[in-house]
């Protein structure tokens, strides 16, 4: 791939290059900081025009060497409206089928890219008029997305898998083109339990998770089971929508929760609970929430889908930079979006936070944003669905993972947003020290002592 090479550079070759295609050589690829998305887009357009004018690369190089790059650019610009072509490409890959979109979200920091893309203009840049609509719970967001009231929605990453497999709803082909955030969850316990930090003492506890088909449910179950607590028999785990969790914790209705932020930080802010453990201590780099859309939307409105995904991926790339986090916190803490005190959101995004026990902790990796939908994440999620009896029978892990987690689109658009996508769509990782091999899911399930299979 040689999409982003300067075609007016006589030394450059348009037919060979580094792994990402943006640089003349692999060494340059490794050493060079990523250029801005617009500059790369312009390069891609110029490259396409030059390739069309000079089908033989040798001829192009000899032409530029003979007249100089500046003259060549002027000459080609006179023949061909390069500026207009660059603009046309920057706007969109084609006319938008539906510029007015409705995207649902749950007011939690996981939705940061989806939310901030609105006040910070990432949607508008793609020519989209998106209204982001706050929604009361996961079941509702699923039903509104299924009914077509939302064109796309913020979901928990296991939800598109569950919807596609027909677990907990009718089977509808669903897709997950991008992950929103990694890490960013925590186990919060009621202040009453500040001296009972060992999970072995937690028998009889009542826990809340946001939804049955959530990373929170699987991570909490995993954590408890690793400490010898059977999540079905020794404790009670119930689904409570995130906004209602702190109220329930305060009323002593539950003993703790594994919840998305800002719920954990809000419990600390109000003196109701303390942060026992960040989810990154269970699995560093785990996915949490996702940007999801129906397969019908992806195939029926390809240009709109591309533009929307591009906005999300660019927003995610922006959110990734720790220097932008304070600005983002201020933009999304308003009543229109998260409706939380700014300091709560800021503590979550910057990772300098009060833990509820009188300490200020500094964990910059508390939450991070990485859009890439690793297919091995999907496989891990399905192993847990099977482990806890949410799905029965044989599961074609690899097939479902590749149909739902749309890695190829993410690779293409991440590249356009100036991010470096990974080389493969699968990676192995370990959860609480136990390695996971995505190629052998069944053996992985069989390796657990506490399971429902």
């Amino acid at each position, binding site marked *: 791939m040689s999409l982003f090479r300067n075609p007016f550079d006589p030394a450059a070759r348009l037919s060979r290059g580094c792994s990402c295609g943006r640089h003349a050589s692999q060494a340059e690829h490794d050493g060079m900081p990523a250029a801005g998305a617009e500059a790369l887009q312009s390069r891609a357009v110029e490259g396409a025009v030059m390739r069309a004018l000079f089908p033989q690369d040798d001829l192009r190089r000899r032409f530029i060497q003979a007249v100089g790059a500046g003259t060549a650019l002027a000459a080609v610009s006179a023949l061909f409206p390069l500026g207009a072509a660059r603009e046309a490409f920057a706007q969109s890959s084609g006319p938008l089928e539906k510029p007015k979109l409705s995207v649902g979200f749950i*007011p939690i920091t996981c939705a940061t890219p989806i939310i901030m893309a609105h006040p910070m203009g990432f949607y508008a840049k793609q020519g989209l008029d998106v209204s982001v609509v706050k929604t009361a719970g996961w079941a509702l967001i699923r039903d*509104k997305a299924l009914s077509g009231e939302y064109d796309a929605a913020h979901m928990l990453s296991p939800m598109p898998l569950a919807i596609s497999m027909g677990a907990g709803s009718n089977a509808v082909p669903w897709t997950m083109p991008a992950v929103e955030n990694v890490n960013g969850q925590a186990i919060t316990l009621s202040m009453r339990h500040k001296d009972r930090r060992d999970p072995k003492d937690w028998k009889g506890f009542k826990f809340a998770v946001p939804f049955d088909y959530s990373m929170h449910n699987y991570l909490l179950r995993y954590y408890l089971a690793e400490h010898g607590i059977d999540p079905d028999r020794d404790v009670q785990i119930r689904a409570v929508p995130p906004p209602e969790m702190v109220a329930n914790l305060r009323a002593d209705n539950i003993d703790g929760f594994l919840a998305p932020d800002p719920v954990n930080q809000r419990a600390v802010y109000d003196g109701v609970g303390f942060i026992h453990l960040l989810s990154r201590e269970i699995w560093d780099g785990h996915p949490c929430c996702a940007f999801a859309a129906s397969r019908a939307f992806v195939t029926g409105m390809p240009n709109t889908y591309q533009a929307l995904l591009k906005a999300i991926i660019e927003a995610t790339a922006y959110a990734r930079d720790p220097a932008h986090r304070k600005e983002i916190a201020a933009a999304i803490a308003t*009543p*229109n979006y998260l*409706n939380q005190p700014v300091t709560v959101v800021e503590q979550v995004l910057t990772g300098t936070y009060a833990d509820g026990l009188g300490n200020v902790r500094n964990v910059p990796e508390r939450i991070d944003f990485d859009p890439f939908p690793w297919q091995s994440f999907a496989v891990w999620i399905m192993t847990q669905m099977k482990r806890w009896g949410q799905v029965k029978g044989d599961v074609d892990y690899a097939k479902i993972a590749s149909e739902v987690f749309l890695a190829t689109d993410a690779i293409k658009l991440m590249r356009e947003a100036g991010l470096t996508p990974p080389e493969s769509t699968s990676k192995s990782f370990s959860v609480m020290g136990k390695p996971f091999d995505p190629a052998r899911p069944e053996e992985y399930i069989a390796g657990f002592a506490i399971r429902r299979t």
Partner: protein
Amino acid sequence: MRPDRPWAAPLLSLAILAALLLVWHALTRPEAGQAAVDPAYAALVGQAAAAGGQTPVPGPLDVARQMWLHLQDPFYDRGPNDKGVGVQLAYSLARVLSGYLLAALVAVPLGFLIGMSRTVYRALDPFIQVLKPISPLAWMPLALYTIRDAGVSAVFVIFICSVWPMLINTAFGVASVRQDWLNVARTLEVPRLRTALQVVLPAAAPTIMTGMRISIGIAWLVIVAAEMLIGGTGIGYFVWNEWNNLSIANIICAILLIGLVGMLLDAILARLARLVSYRE
């Protein structure tokens, strides 16, 4: 009641209100005695948590302050998720009125037919008795799944909960029109349609109005719960959104406003009922 002291009742009401406010104020006073905490930590948490406690329930002064803020600018609109309390109330009222009027359009004519015939009354009675006690919120998942539109589902839920009192009262009112009046109409050979409109309808009107008054009360009760479920707009969503923010002061403001609007709706229906009442 003795008519010579008309100021006694309002005075007593005021005294009760003052007593309630005083008790509320006394119960929610912040506790004195601040625990010493690291200032860097205190800056990151709420005032109460910094002192080692929980954020308290707001007192009457906090609520009054919040209420004043809402009443100063009730109709602002800052995007789909942040609208003034007046706008939210208007959305709720629009939903309630559309569901309620639809229910009236269905229930009054249907109740009329049922009331005119004993056989139909008996035949439909079991259905009405089974459907009547179902909590309207139990319809919500079904409505969302089949109608596939949250706004219409909310209107449907209002419809389904306000249709029964009107239907039953209309049927009852029509069935219990005094036989003498019907006999007089028959003796005078008044056509059936004219009997229905000029004898039965005025005779049953007070009962029908009672049904409508019960219905509007129920509809206003249900809309708050329904909007907390479907979200988006309305005073129920406002309550949910402030719950999400754990802002109890705002929730108390909303509760007061819901009560006031409910009272207003009931007063309007009571005024209408007086217009159609008669003395035998």
